[in-house]
């Protein structure tokens, strides 16, 4: 199939041929020809954001909640540079995004032209790959390659930079089927010998643990199903990173909760004491491992990952298995059954008895109050009110994010969108808009903080324009809570610049944008107010200003520079312990 058309037409045609229905973007001089083509068709719907950064987060929310590729369209110069944070975010969290940027005409490149920047140079380290298309006859191929690279292997963001003269020029269009990438062919199937070795280790394990991550979600719904089957088959305890929540249901009896810096006591101690660790689609990030030289010192480690560079990066692995989670788990389960492998039941029973003792510490408990809403309580009530709904949760970054991860319970994959690797404040609202575009009938809630929400508050205007009923649930403590908590832990409680003295009136702000504002400051009113939010008009966004205890800390916590078994638990922590929690070496860490 070959057709003659302009570069701008090719862009729209390629999006349509890739099955793309939604594009998040913002027009400008260098993309006008593409916007003109957008105007003349109805296959691809454009969502006009209020800042390009919002477009990328919206595309991320769209991608994460659907498993599809998110698409962004922005102009040259500031359009591209505003997208950089979102691209870096998508790279860190392995989210497939295709970002199309306009560029000044080829003859002006390098001339410091108006709204020119070296987009491919700037985005090279924050994308999986990028292209500057100088010839219109390369455009269709590059666009289809871009989608292929974004979604294949370990997913990630890509940028296609298209000069304006290339958008006007006429060339030959080729369809997606005619494009095959010559170098990028990631390996999907795991090595059979390594898998057999893993089965052997697992069947002899006395204290096993499954440590899963965002790779399970990225691998697709089948991977989550296979993970559940593996747990049924083995009865192994399972924990997950922030990015992997929902791959295994929180209601499952084998579920230990999230692990890591703000993970549960039982999950972290199981990681520390285990003898066989099966890491599935996670990357031993520093938030997970704590102090590396004291990380799970007595375990044999099996690591399933599609990206070979994740293996042995931070932690030495005994059995690496390179491949896609779904392919590898399928083969692992098949091998397990074929070998008629069994688990060491006696040992497993005493391991579970140990885990139950850890669970009995009830590490997530907090002191409830009658007169002030505890942030943990707010999340618990939000969960209770929405658990029977078709719900998608996004977050910003900070204490509220950790409380959401701890207290909201996810039963299914793709329901939880958060900025894990980069930790981007301002992610949640645009991501919620993206998720709501993809799931118009569902309940989409951005669990937010009062500081984070202001970083991309302008996207309220987008939500109003497209009649998206996203709910912004702000845990408002008037602080950058996590910054304040660290200042308390590390810097003698000197609260340097982490208090916002003049927050807007969020109820009036919602009103000003054309949305609905609700405020709640009493525990007794909370349930009714949440109901009001959930039953609000289905064509307007809601801002819920939930006034919570100002100085609550997020526990449990592994302080910087400490190991998994050196956690601070919430209820018991005294002020002196907080003062002593982080040593000199830990203070330089983040």
């Amino acid at each position, binding site marked *: 199939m070959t057709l003659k058309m302009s570069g701008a037409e090719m862009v729209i045609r390629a999006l349509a041929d890739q099955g793309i229905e939604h594009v998040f973007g913002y027009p400008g001089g260098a993309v006008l020809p593409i916007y003109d083509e957008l105007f003349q068709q109805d296959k691809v719907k454009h969502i006009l954001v209020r800042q390009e950064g919002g477009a990328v987060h919206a595309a991320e929310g769209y991608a994460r909640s659907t498993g599809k590729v998110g698409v962004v369209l922005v102009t040259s110069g500031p359009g591209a540079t505003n997208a950089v944070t979102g691209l870096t975010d998508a790279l860190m969290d392995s989210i497939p995004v295709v970002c199309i940027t306009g560029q000044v005409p080829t003859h002006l490149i390098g001339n410091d032209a108006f709204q020119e920047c070296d987009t491919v140079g700037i985005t090279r*380290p924050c994308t999986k790959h990028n292209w500057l298309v100088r010839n219109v006859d390369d455009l269709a191929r590059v666009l289809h390659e871009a989608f292929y690279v974004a979604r294949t292997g370990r997913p990630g963001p890509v940028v296609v930079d298209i000069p304006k003269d290339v958008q006007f020029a006429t060339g030959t269009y080729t369809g997606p089927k005619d494009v095959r990438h010559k170098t990028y062919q990631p390996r999907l199937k795991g090595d059979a010998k390594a898998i057999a070795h893993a089965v052997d280790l697992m069947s002899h394990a006395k204290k096993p643990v499954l440590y899963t991550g965002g790779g399970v979600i990225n691998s697709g719904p089948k991977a989550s199903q296979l993970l559940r089957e593996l747990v049924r088959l083995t009865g192994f305890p399972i924990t997950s990173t922030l990015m992997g929540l929902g791959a295994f249901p929180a209601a499952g009896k084998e579920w230990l909760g999230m692990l890591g810096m703000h993970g549960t006591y039982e999950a972290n101690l199981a990681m520390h004491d285990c003898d066989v660790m099966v890491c599935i689609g996670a990357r031993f990030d520093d938030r997970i491992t704590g102090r590396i030289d004291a990380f799970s010192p007595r375990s044999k480690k099996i690591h399933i990952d599609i990206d070979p560079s994740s293996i042995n990066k931070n932690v030495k692995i005994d059995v690496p298995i390179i491949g896609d989670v779904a392919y590898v788990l399928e083969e692992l389960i098949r091998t397990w059954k074929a070998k008629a492998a069994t688990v060491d039941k006696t040992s497993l029973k005493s391991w579970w008895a140990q885990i139950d003792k850890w669970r009995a510490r009830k590490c997530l408990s907090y002191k409830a109050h009658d007169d002030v809403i505890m942030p943990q309580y707010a999340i618990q009530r939000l969960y209770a009110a929405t658990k029977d709904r078709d719900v998608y949760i996004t977050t910003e970054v900070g204490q509220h994010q950790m409380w959401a991860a701890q207290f909201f319970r996810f039963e299914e994959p793709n329901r939880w969108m958060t900025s894990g690797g980069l930790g981007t404040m301002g992610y949640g609202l645009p991501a919620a808009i993206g998720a709501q575009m993809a799931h118009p009938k569902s309940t989409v809630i951005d669990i937010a903080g009062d500081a984070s929400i202001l970083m991309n508050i302008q996207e309220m205007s987008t939500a109003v324009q497209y009649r998206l009923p996203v709910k912004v649930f702000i845990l408002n403590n008037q602080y950058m809570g996590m910054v304040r908590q660290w200042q308390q832990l590390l810097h003698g409680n000197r609260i340097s610049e982490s208090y916002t003295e003049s927050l807007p009136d969020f109820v009036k702000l919602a009103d000003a944008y054309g949305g609905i504002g609700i405020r709640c400051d009493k525990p007794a009113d909370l349930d009714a107010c949440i109901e009001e939010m959930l039953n609000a008009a289905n064509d307007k966004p809601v801002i819920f200003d939930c006034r919570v205890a100002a100085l609550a800390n997020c526990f449990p916590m592994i302080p910087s520079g400490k190991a998994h078994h050196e956690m601070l638990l919430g209820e018991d922590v005294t002020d002196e312990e907080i003062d002593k929690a982080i040593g000199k070496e830990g203070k330089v860490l983040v």
Partner: protein
Amino acid sequence: MPNTQPKSAYFIEERHDKPEAHTLSVLVDNEPGVLARIAGLFSGRGYNIDSLTVSETEHEKHLSRFTIVTTGTPMVIGQIKNQLERLVNVHRVVDLTVAGDPLERELALLKVAGKGEKRIEALRLAEIFRADVIDASTEHFVFELTGRTNKIEQFISIMRELGLLEVSRTGIAAIGRGAKGM
């Protein structure tokens, strides 16, 4: 030397593995920006580049071959190889040092100025080192020398005493031994 630099948030472990020098051959699509991609990977992740040489080696396929000499602990060398392979337009990465004692050669051009005894001595030594004279006047020579790095280093240090003005070096080109290709 113990690594006292915290590499990640929790990295306060001192590594005792000794750094090793490895020579990598990297076959890539010769596209604009490919050098920046590879150089950026090294600088962004804090890896060392001791030497880097690149040229298109297969014109019909537009393939370029990088020869990179780098230093790191075995774990870091493994990471470098994996990170390079992860780049979308990298075809293959071969650690020639692991494959065994690769052939490594460098080319250097040296400009040496002088008169009288020193000039004669420079020419005499160039003959011993099998350096060619590729430009000359009554007041200078330009020598061309190929060989292993230590031979070139030695020649340069001798010429320093005999009026060495400037040196230009290519960095290492390397290839594995034996009948098999990479």
